[in-house]
């Protein structure tokens, strides 16, 4: 187990380095940070001096080396745009994105799993067909359109929920959370739903497919043959067995959720990392973009690791006796 985790961690470092490298090589093409940092009247000479100061004239390898070594020493640099430490800026935004992502995920699970089970058990029902078609339409509308529609329906027309931002946050330790106030939840719900729609459909379809597969398996038939109550068979036996593939895909998708939160955050002005990242692209704020990507890669790697550990928790066959 320890060996396994260590092995994964070592691999993770490589994944992150590779992401950093790729990220870094792309920044040079995003645009020119200097022209974004300076005003109309700044002279060319001043711009050149700034460029030199920031080390932007150094060869790419040197810049990358500096970026990685600094980062390994815990120095994440300063934003070109706000001059604040990048580490602080990102750290400030992590709770917002994570809470959004996790709540979206949870919504997608608590709706998607029962819907998947239902549609699997009644494959020909009218409701099943309805659910399948609705979700299909749901994922066929681009996220940004869905987001804006939700804002106008629930925020403007009905006036039930806030249209933007993240309100009602509470500081808990170093973590700014919106999960502890009604206000916070009201702000969270629309973006989380928007972000969760795709995930929900995916979860539902996956659970449905796996469930239909598992329901045909011998142990379910044997369970029926010995008269185990149906409810127990469906939820205790069948559902648990669908979880391994479902967790894999959901784990993989969580990375996608975090990445796609860029769109959702921008639509809802949700102050998370994605929004910060978009702003950073606009201002060619290279240090922020770099750290953002590495953080994303880190989350991705972390989620993968958690998924692997969850397998072990779910499936006793994977538990290795000797550590």
């Amino acid at each position, binding site marked *: 187990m320890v060996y396994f985790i260590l092995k994964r961690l070592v691999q993770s470092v490589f994944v992150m380095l590779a992401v950093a490298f790729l990220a870094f090589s792309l920044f040079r093409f995003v645009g020119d940070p200097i022209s974004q940092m300076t005003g109309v009247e700044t002279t060319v000479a001043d711009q050149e001096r700034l460029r030199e100061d920031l080390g932007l004239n150094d060869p790419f390898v040197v810049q990358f080396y500096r970026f990685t070594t600094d980062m390994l020493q815990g120095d994440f640099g300063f934003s070109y745009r706000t001059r604040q430490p990048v580490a602080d800026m990102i750290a400030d935004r992590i709770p917002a994105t994570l809470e959004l992502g996790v709540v979206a995920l949870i919504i997608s699970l608590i709706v998607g799993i029962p819907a998947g089970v239902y549609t699997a058990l009644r494959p020909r029902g009218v409701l099943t067909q309805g659910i399948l078609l609705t979700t299909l339409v749901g994922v066929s509308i681009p996220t940004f359109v869905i987001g804006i529609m939700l804002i106008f329906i629930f925020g403007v027309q009905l006036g039930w929920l806030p249209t933007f931002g993240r309100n009602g946050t509470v500081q808990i330790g170093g973590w700014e959370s919106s999960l502890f106030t009604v206000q916070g939840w009201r702000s969270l719900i629309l973006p989380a739903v928007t972000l969760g729609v795709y995930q929900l459909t995916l979860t539902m379809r996956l659970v449905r497919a796996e469930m239909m597969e598992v329901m*045909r*398996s011998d142990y379910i038939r*044997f369970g029926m*043959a010995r008269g185990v109550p149906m409810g127990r068979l469906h939820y205790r036996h069948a559902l648990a*067995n669908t979880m391994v593939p479902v967790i894999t895909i959901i784990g993989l998708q969580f990375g996608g959720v975090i990445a796609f939160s860029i769109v959702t955050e921008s639509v809802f002005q949700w102050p998370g990392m994605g929004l910060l990242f978009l702003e950073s692209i606009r201002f060619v704020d290279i240090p922020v973009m770099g750290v953002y990507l590495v953080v994303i890669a880190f989350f991705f790697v972390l989620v993968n690791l958690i998924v692997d550990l969850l397998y072990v928790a779910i499936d006793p*066959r994977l538990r290795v006796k000797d550590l």
Partner: protein
Amino acid sequence: MLVIKDLAVKFPSRFGDVTAIADVDMEIRPGEIHGLVGESGAGKSTVGAAVIGLLSQPGYIAGGEITLGETDLRALSPEAAHRIRGDRISMIFQDPQTSLNPLMTIEDQLVETIQAHSDATHSQAVTRAVDLLEEIGIKNAASRIKAYPHQFSGGMRQRVVIALAICTDPELIIADEPTTALDVAVQSQVLALIQRLARERQIAFMLITHDIGVIAQVADRVTVMRKGRVMETGETQQVLGAPDHPYTQALMDAVPPLDVKIDRFRVPEEAPIAGEGPTGNVAEAWLLEGQRSEMLGLTLDHLTVQFAAPRTSLFRTPAPYVALDDVSLTVRPGTIMGLVGESGSGKSTLAKAITGLVSPTSGTMQLGGDDLPYGKTRGRRHPSRQLIQMVFQDPYSSLNSRHTIADILEEPLWFYGFVSDARERRRLAAAMLELVGMAPEAIDKYPHQFSGGQRQRVAVARALLARPRFLICDEPTSALDVSIQAEILNLLKDLQSTFGLSVLFISHNLSVVRQMADDTAVLRAGRIEEVGPTEDLYEAPQADYTRELLALTPVMPKAWRRAG
């Protein structure tokens, strides 16, 4: 007690209803073990499933009666039927590997079953479960009950399955091939358990199997099915010993005996005889023409194969798993060497080492006096890749289902550079099909359009088209019915003698090996227990293990066999 009358089951399909069984009559009395035999697809499982009400979708009972005691099983509502299941009827499936929920402990599964049918409290249920496990022969049941299925061996798992079936004291248990996945030792224990339960608890068993030996050994009465209909039913002794129905007679003839060697298997129906057709001769001639080289023997010397066990610790390299341990074996040129042993003993590993699919850790292999390099170092163009061919166990997966028979058969011809003309290749492939007893027109079809036996013929044809000198058959008939098995074995025998092939014949079925092999080796946990001429080995086994195997193999009483 269980009475089935005129039962018919249909499966609606995309192309209309298919009648799986019809006019099935059967009666099972309390405490009786009722055998249900027949070839694959005969409808045996369908009868069982219809009785317990678990026909696989979208099958339905089209007519007939099923009554259990006073209850008309067909008249029950789904809820009532579900209540009856477990309570009065239970079922055991073939594969103990897949019959248990891998994510729940044995205890959970037993307790939930007991509680589903009684008011027992949790602790009462646990007590009962433990008692039950003890009763069916699981030692230390109190502690082992906390285990997950994967922590049990196959035999123990099948016992647990039986425990689950009997824990609610049903009147009838339907056992669908309950021992097919087990090796003989475990099989005999499970069969003994079933017999004991029938005697002591008066549980009736419907024992579904295609193994006539098993039926002969344990069944009180037997029903023979074919193509969805009952051919014959009655006392076991009468049906098997003096069959009325010609089909039953033919079936009995195809069962290979363990105790004597017969020349050829009797085939139930007139199967086409190999090599009869005019084009078949072409193929035969072509093969004989390739016989320039003499017969090749194979010598294995101190062969050891180890597999790395998965690494789980940072500091310890785990001890490798020894699949073959110091195996020395000689296949004489032009003879058949039989290799028997229970599942997991390393038989297939041996075949793979010879064919180069796995690399031995040490030892040498020689084919006709030439060293055979280890798998990793054997070049793609090494002559042995042509000289050694293999017929696999599973005809379903050994043929690429996306290639036509022509593609499959022509591949060795061009690959080994025998025939460069495409038309000639096709002609030869068709001829070879005929040689193995199939219509040459079959060449444009796909494998899934054939039955298992036909596919296995194609597999044999493919092996022959490589002009092999050494043929490995890895359980070539274990996926087939007895009757088809007989055909294939006859075919293999004929071909072997015609073309002077040396053969390594792998099987876990001792009866089959006795009929096929000149010499036999017994493998156990990667070690050779005994090797010698087949007749000697079967008549006077030296090793205890061999004796045990022979004793436990279910056989028909000699008297029931018609004179060969």
